[in-house]
């Protein structure tokens, strides 16, 4: 694009800070609320850091991963899922999925960032991590791979997003592909962090790495639907025929993925019931301490209600889709919590039949843990609402913002620029060449 000056703000669909200033008072209040939440969360988290987490957190020696790890997993699962589902379009060329890419990649980056905000308050020495992960890497540690790969994933996604804004389809596609590969590797490694702990029968085995990938895709579909339909509420103009088609396609794939996860869950329960190491935990899901989490949140809110509502919506009742996926996000949060906490409930000495460990261990999140998790959630929500305004609903094809020299590509709906003396067709070929 040599020799041509184009106002970047226009080219990127960037509406600037003015867009925030012009927002309605109600919108400003929502943003302010989430900003406050993030600030309060950060303040409480820092207080915990200062006085020492073991005074203020509910985690113990035996239940050492609590709400913060669950919230972190919720964030990174959603991030990976957004990347997976959006890649169907802009990496693998599934035309129907293309219009969701910009918002999905943006939110994917924000969810990853929010996840890092949360884990910052869980790791006791986060600053040491930066040094010793590099100087003293342990290549057989899943935790090391998870951290390293997620770091690389975030970098790829940011570069990809830059090229998406730049309308450089070949490079954004290449980066999207690398991001997807690294993201899936990172994410299955996160599953393996749990799946490779011998002493924890509830987690041990190949189930979790595989489940995590499918579950991520489901969360990704859900998140795209939720944020797109919410974006439509904020600015109805973002809907057009292509976007409607995209929402329909994502709805279909989300329905399919929910069914897959139902299938996973059924077999987890059935096999767990006949396994000595898992029996107690499974029973606490079915009828014990975790039965409300399991039946109400995980099964009803997380799977059956959205499945029913999404099928009823036929992919074009956006209000219904928004409610279905909004409630589903809450259900999914409990799904993550129900992986992390119950896996630690049975003490390693329980099977020895000793008096001290006869009962299942318990865990209740403390105020500090809840606030530190809300820090990350607040950051993500704030980023979403700011993004919708400043990035103009992540639109690519709004006529008013097509700058000089640009045109709307009939193939992908994005704005392309013609070089000197180029025809539209040549420009399209250049933008869409396969690397």
């Amino acid at each position: 694009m040599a020799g041509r000056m184009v106002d970047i703000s226009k080219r990127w669909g960037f509406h600037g800070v003015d867009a925030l200033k012009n927002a309605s008072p109600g919108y400003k209040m929502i943003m302010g609320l989430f900003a406050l939440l993030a600030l309060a969360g950060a303040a409480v988290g820092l207080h915990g850091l200062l006085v020492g987490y073991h005074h203020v957190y509910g985690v113990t020696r035996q239940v050492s991963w609590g709400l913060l790890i669950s919230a972190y997993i919720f964030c990174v699962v959603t991030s990976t899922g957004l990347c997976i589902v959006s890649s169907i379009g802009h990496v693998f060329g599934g035309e129907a999925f293309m219009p969701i890419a910009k918002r999905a990649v943006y939110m994917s980056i924000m969810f990853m960032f929010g996840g890092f905000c949360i884990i910052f308050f869980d790791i006791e020495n986060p600053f040491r991590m930066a040094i010793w992960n590099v100087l003293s890497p342990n290549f057989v540690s899943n935790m090391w791979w998870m951290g390293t790969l997620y770091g690389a994933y975030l970098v790829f996604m940011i570069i990809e997003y830059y090229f998406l804004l730049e309308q450089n389809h070949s490079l954004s596609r290449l980066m999207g592909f690398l991001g997807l590969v690294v993201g899936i590797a990172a994410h299955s490694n996160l599953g393996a962090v749990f799946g490779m702990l011998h002493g924890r029968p509830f987690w041990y085995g190949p189930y979790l790495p595989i489940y995590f990938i499918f579950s991520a895709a489901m969360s990704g579909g859900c998140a795209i639907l939720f944020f797109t339909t919410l974006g439509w509420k904020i600015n109805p103009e973002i809907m057009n025929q292509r976007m409607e088609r995209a929402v329909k396609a994502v709805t279909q794939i989300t329905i399919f993925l929910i069914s897959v996860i139902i299938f996973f869950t059924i077999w987890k329960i059935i096999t767990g019931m006949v396994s000595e190491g898992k029996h107690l935990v499974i029973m606490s899901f079915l009828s014990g301490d975790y039965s409300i989490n399991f039946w109400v949140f995980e099964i009803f809110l997380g799977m059956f209600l959205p499945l029913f509502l999404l099928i009823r919506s036929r992919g074009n009742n956006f209000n219904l889709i928004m409610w279905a996926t909004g409630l589903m996000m809450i259900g999914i949060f409990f799904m993550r919590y129900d992986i992390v906490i119950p896996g630690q409930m049975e003490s390693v000495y329980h099977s020895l039949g000793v008096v001290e460990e006869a009962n299942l261990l318990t865990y209740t999140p403390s105020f500090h843990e809840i606030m530190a998790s809300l820090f990350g959630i607040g950051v993500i929500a704030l980023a979403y609402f700011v993004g919708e305004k400043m990035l103009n609903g992540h639109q690519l094809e709004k006529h008013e913002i097509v700058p000089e020299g640009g045109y709307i590509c009939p193939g992908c709906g994005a704005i392309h620029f013609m070089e000197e003396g180029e025809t539209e067709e040549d420009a399209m070929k250049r933008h869409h060449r396969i690397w």
Partner: protein
Amino acid sequence: MKFPKINFDTLKNEGTKSVTAQERRNFLKLGLTVAGVYAGGKILSLTSVIGTAHASGVGFVEKYPYNPHYSMVIRQTLCIDCEKCVDACKVTNNIPDYGYRTRILTKKYTGKLDKQVEFIPVLCNHCNSAPCVRACPTKATYKDPVTGIVRMESKKCIGCKTCMLACPYDARYFSAERRAVDKCDFCWEERLSQGEKLTACAAACPTGARTFGNLTDPENIVYKLVHQLEEQVWVLRPADDTKPNIFYMKGNMRSVDNILNEQRFKYFDPDKI
């Protein structure tokens, strides 16, 4: 002379229960152990025990991987839950009051006729294939290549707590004072590296329930206890296959006396409490 024809491949192992103690002892003297009984007790299957060692109480290894290979044998029935070991550990290693490196578990047996209580001291097993070492992202916890002690390099610990979940023996806790995970190091820092021979807990134990020593030295008490064949020796959670170095036995005094012959060791001494 006619020999009976026996097809060994199709014979069923009838277990070793029917072999009398006398028979077994005879074979032990020859350096053989009974591995199975076939054909209605007519055939004993024997394996040599010379030159092999009960590495983890589960499998056999040819040679111990460390020297000195530090190990502890806990004679469970001798433990009286006085917790002197726990206190000695706390004082020696500056353990904060919210943490512990070793603890005593209580097991109650309720039979038809009587009740019985048994105490089980537990601590880090210094596993030969240690899950905590594999799980740590920064090698902050590592297996000492000489002694086999699983130690911490505190400055590298990022506090992710993965090792605490990876450990199947609940041997780790996060120490705010050290800003790192803390665990038993067989008193390496505070005692062994300064020339002491015993860990604080073993030295403090009034009954001899905890015996500590070098598993590669045939003269050492732990070697003798692990390698005797009269009493069963086991490890906790063998299915996790961590190859632990804490061995357990019942340790009733008469048989232990037989095993150790003239080796002196502490019995319960009322004056010492």
